[in-house]
């Protein structure tokens, strides 16, 4: 999900549709990119769960999915458990228990 946001154009798209639903053409009009390039960006964002696509006749409308971002929290949910696992490995390597090494 975060990699989807690593691209400045995609971040700009998210900004455009964070409050409003827009058709693909109108999103593309904000960029100097080809419509195809914009469409690819939309696909990446959609796959990442960052936006919702709705069809209306032949038009496709996009809207940002705010629930998809639980940013800081989601990161820390992984960060601290990972960090503590590293702490465990480091401490146990630096301070092997006597007898545990079979020496």
């Amino acid at each position: 999900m975060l990699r989807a946001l690593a691209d400045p154009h995609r971040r700009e798209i998210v900004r455009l549709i964070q409050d409003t639903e827009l058709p693909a053409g109108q999103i593309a009009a904000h960029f100097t990119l080809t419509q195809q390039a914009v469409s690819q960006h939309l696909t990446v964002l959609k796959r990442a769960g960052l936006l919702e696509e709705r069809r209306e006749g032949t038009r496709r409308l996009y809207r940002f999915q705010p629930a998809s971002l639980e940013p800081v929290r989601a990161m820390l949910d992984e960060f601290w458990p990972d960090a503590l696992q590293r702490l465990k490995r480091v401490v146990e390597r630096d301070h092997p228990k006597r007898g545990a090494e079979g020496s």
Partner: protein
Amino acid sequence: MTEPVTASVRIAAPPEVVFPYFTDPALAVKWIANAAYLDARPGGTLAIDVRGNPARGEYLVVDPPHRVVFTWGIEGRQDFLPGSSTVEVVLQADGDESVVTLTHRDLPSEDYRRSHREGWGEFLGLLAERAGSSPA
């Protein structure tokens, strides 16, 4: 208020051995930081670079070998400024092992996102950079 993030781990070493890894820069760099400046006394500065992100805070409680509390934020990140959240680490002895429990409180809330939209692009960029540099 947002729910705290919690994490815990059991380590095969007593709290006396584990505690300094939260207060001694030479040990902190082994597990959490690329670089660390730690002045582990109440009011002292905690400055560590985590995957290129400048995490900054202040020690509030330094009670070896059982408890250390410090504030935590990322320098320059409007949604997560230094001092904005608090990390409490408790080390409990269990035989000759330790159970380390970490609680990260006062994390930014949803409301913040609604009221700081202008900063989003930058914020998302930082998030993405962090994610991009993670080993996963």
